[in-house]
């Protein structure tokens, strides 16, 4: 996960530093435990976690027709390591079974594993009411997806789940077990823009920007399916999004090169 993140004065902590800082929290709290399984073993700096295959920065994720995500890989994964006792396992499933058997409570269903922007995480003892949106924002500091309404009416929380746009506010995080999630942060390292981001950049197509991450994810899914969408296809792809600056027409015009 060598993520060359652009640090800003107001965002001075890189995700890697944050994740390192989050460390391992053992035992349940009202918010649930964060159990970090994955990090980039970048330059020998490791936490007590596991390296795995991820996309290189800026590299486009290719999608197959079935909506499954195939990623190009950099750096082969070798082992999954239990951070409690350093035992090594060949598969994630084997590690999970080990954790369930040895390091958590009797409820074996209490581990949620999901991949976000190519990195795999496992969460222990998540409260079932926790939404995927909350998980992304508060557990992983991925603030791109926004809480615009928390009820699936505005699209501000849109992420791709197994390649498809969904409202992450309506996904219970425990039910995202096994899913592959993409957020806007995964599209770019902050410096090199993805195709859709570049289109909006070239057309200067944003206003306040709050709805942008969600719209970018829907537009990304559209562009993966159709390189040259029609006006009706663009309309439909964005139809689950609110924009109170009134910028929907500008996003659409940019995607269609209308102006």
């Amino acid at each position, binding site marked *: 996960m060598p993520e060359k993140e*652009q640090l*800003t004065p*107001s*965002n001075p902590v890189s995700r890697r530093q944050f994740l390192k800082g989050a460390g391992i929290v053992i035992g349940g*709290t*009202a*918010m649930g435990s*964060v159990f970090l399984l994955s990090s980039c073993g970048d330059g020998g700096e490791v936490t007590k976690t596991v390296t795995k295959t991820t996309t290189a920065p800026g590299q486009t994720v290719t999608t197959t027709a079935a909506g499954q995500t195939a990623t190009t890989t950099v750096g082969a994964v070798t082992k999954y390591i239990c951070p409690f006792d350093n035992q090594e396992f060949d598969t994630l499933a084997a590690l999970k079974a080990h954790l369930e058997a040895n390091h958590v409570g009797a409820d074996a269903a209490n581990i949620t594993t999901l991949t976000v922007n190519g990195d795999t995480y496992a969460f222990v003892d998540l*409260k079932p*009411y*926790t939404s995927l949106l*909350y998980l992304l*924002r*508060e*557990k*992983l*500091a991925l*603030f*791109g997806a*926004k*809480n*615009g*309404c*928390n009820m699936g*009416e*505005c699209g*501000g929380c849109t992420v791709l789940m197994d390649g498809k746009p969904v409202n992450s506010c309506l996904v219970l995080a425990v039910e995202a077990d096994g899913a592959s999630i993409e*957020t*806007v*942060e995964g599209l*770019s390292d*902050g410096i090199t*823009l993805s195709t859709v*981001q570049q289109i909006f*950049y070239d057309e*200067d*197509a*944003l*206003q*306040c*920007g*709050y*709805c*942008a991450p969600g719209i970018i994810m829907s537009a990304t899914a559209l562009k993966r399916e159709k390189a040259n969408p029609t006006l009706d296809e663009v309309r*439909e792809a*964005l139809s689950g*999004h*609110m*924009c*109170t*600056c*009134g*910028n*929907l*027409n*500008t996003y*659409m*015009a940019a995607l*269609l090169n209308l*102006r």
Partner: protein
Amino acid sequence: MADYAVVGKAGNKEKTIVQKLTGRLDYADDRLPGQKLVARTLLSRYANAEVTAINTSAAEALPGVKAVITYDECPMLYKSIRRWGQEIAAVAAVDNETATRALELIQVTYQEGNQISDVEEAMKPGAPLTGVWEGTNIRTSELLRGDVEAGFAQADQEFTETAGWTNFWQHKEMEPWSATTYWVGDDLYVWTTSQNPFGQRNTIKNTMGWPMHKIHLISHGSGSGHGNKHGANWIIIAAVLAKKAGMPVSYHLTRFEQCCSSTAHQNKGKLEMRVGVKNDGTITAVEATYWADGCSGGATTASGMDFGFRYTYNVPHAKWTFYDIATNTPLRGAFRCVADPPGDALYNLVMDKVADKLGMDPLEFRIKNLVAPDMLQFESKMPFSSMGIRQCLEQAAAALDWDTKWHQPGNRTLSDGRLHGIGIAGHIDSHGQMSSPCGAILNLTKDGKCLIAPGQSHNAGSINAHCHHVAEVLGMKYEDVHVGDWGHTDVTSEGGSEGGSTRCITLGSAYVEAALDARAEAFAVAAGWMGLTPDKLSAGDGLIFETANPTNSKTWVEVAGRFSYPIIGKGYSWPKKLRRQVLNWPVGTDCEVRGQMAQAVEIAVDPDTGQIEVLNMASAIDCGQAIYRSGFNKGCFGGHEIIMGETLMYEQVIDYGNGASMNPNFWQNAHVTAMDIHPEGFNAIAVETDDACGPHGCKGVGEPEVSALACMANAVYNATGVWIDSLPITPDKVLQALGKA
């Protein structure tokens, strides 16, 4: 027309666009991941009541709850309830779900009063009191101009027409009220959405008595404002909770809270206007009565609804009577303008009615009765620094092919059976002017760039406009002027309110001054180096050069490399006075600086369902001079969507039986979707009159972009031959007008 090097040029981009595109711009809730408590507020079940007892002990005992406060501890929580959904108590807990459960454990005892949420009930003689004002539900005022009876005596005909009620529309910004707050000792740190960071700091200080210098408020990313984010209610609630809990608190309102609590909605108005006209369509006199719903805050905005009429039409004799009526409904506040949009929806509908009765094209009728650029404004007696209202009407009409497309009402059907209609409206707006004094600071870097630090929020495009002003004056390229930090009360200078369509012109003028200040010092350095005096120098395109011999030049980078001390630019905004002679009025004359606009719309109405589709729309705005060109265009196009929403969809539905808001969400209180709009049919036109007060000739446009609401109702009349006086114009009203419901 002035030709600037940077100002008004296409292709210049939003300065924070990369951060926005990559999800890395920090909005208020994008802070302290997993380390902040979540606040929820308990909202009243009654619209008029007194809270006689409250018991929070069960809520406090719920595991995960860290603090509970009531009206005893926070002035933004209330015991005397005058609107459904008013805040009574607040909870901070480890997560949203725990806080929400805690609300149900707070026991409140209410003594219920009479609620009156229907303005027509509240204004009836003998109506029970709403409790908003002492002893009455109604306040009234009057305005006279000339001799109204003499004016009517000159008329050949008289018409009395009505319009209204317009609609409550609730603020529904994508980002609700949102703040993350924490304390370090008695220093308060706040990240918040905002339209006025310094104003908010002031409000917090005034409300709570906390020292101003110990309130550290930052607003970076902000998700759309529209007039709802000047206050600090949510910040204060979060801060009081944070103090009590001893932990950071985020108060990011739910949609339910955002539609109730103390957020505001644009109020409703009604008009009855008696108009005297000569046979050729010249208006000789007007007698108007406006009613406005003052809601539970007791707002008095009926007179504001008339602003555009008084400014736009050359009516020498008039009498206005204004009634403001308090009701037990959510607070009234500006929604993308104080009162001009509902006002336009009223008087500009009446204007079309009068034109119709005269058998005149409404565009022609309007233009005939406009004030002229050489007139003083009737009440203020001041000249206008620029006046493009006529060009706005003409160009908006031309963009939609008005001459070919306008027809007699109800007599054009499209091939699919739908009714075609076209309508226009426009006025001189109350907004867009030079407003309260503010300051600007900037830094020149030793690598030849400039960093501005505007003390304002960033919902719209004005920060980019300041970069244009600065680049133009310094003679730098737009790419070399950057925004350093903004909206930070500890660091930036007080930059005023991102409201009233005033930043581009007001803080913009301060930035011109700051750039001139810095440029003078830089020129001193360059002059010394080039063996000239500073008065012999100019700057442009990244170069500082000898005016008389432009090939004798140095780059800004080279000159900056020779700065021996940091060069800072400081400036203050200009007063509202002419900066160049206009007609007979000399420099320094106090003047009217007003944004002006026309919006025109072409629609198709389905006579079976009453559904209205907007086919084409045009917005022509007298902006004086567009500064951030792309921002101007986006703002016009955005205004199209908002006008569609305001006229066709937005409605905060109040159940008059109990005063409840029935649609506190995005679903039924709706903004247009992508499926509802035709981006290919949208038109943005800059009418550039080169204002004589604003920096580089500009005026504000944010509110003019959404103001000529009557264009829609006028188009509906043109389509159907039936007037629909009230907003929003929903299918049920169209069907009723067509006799089908």
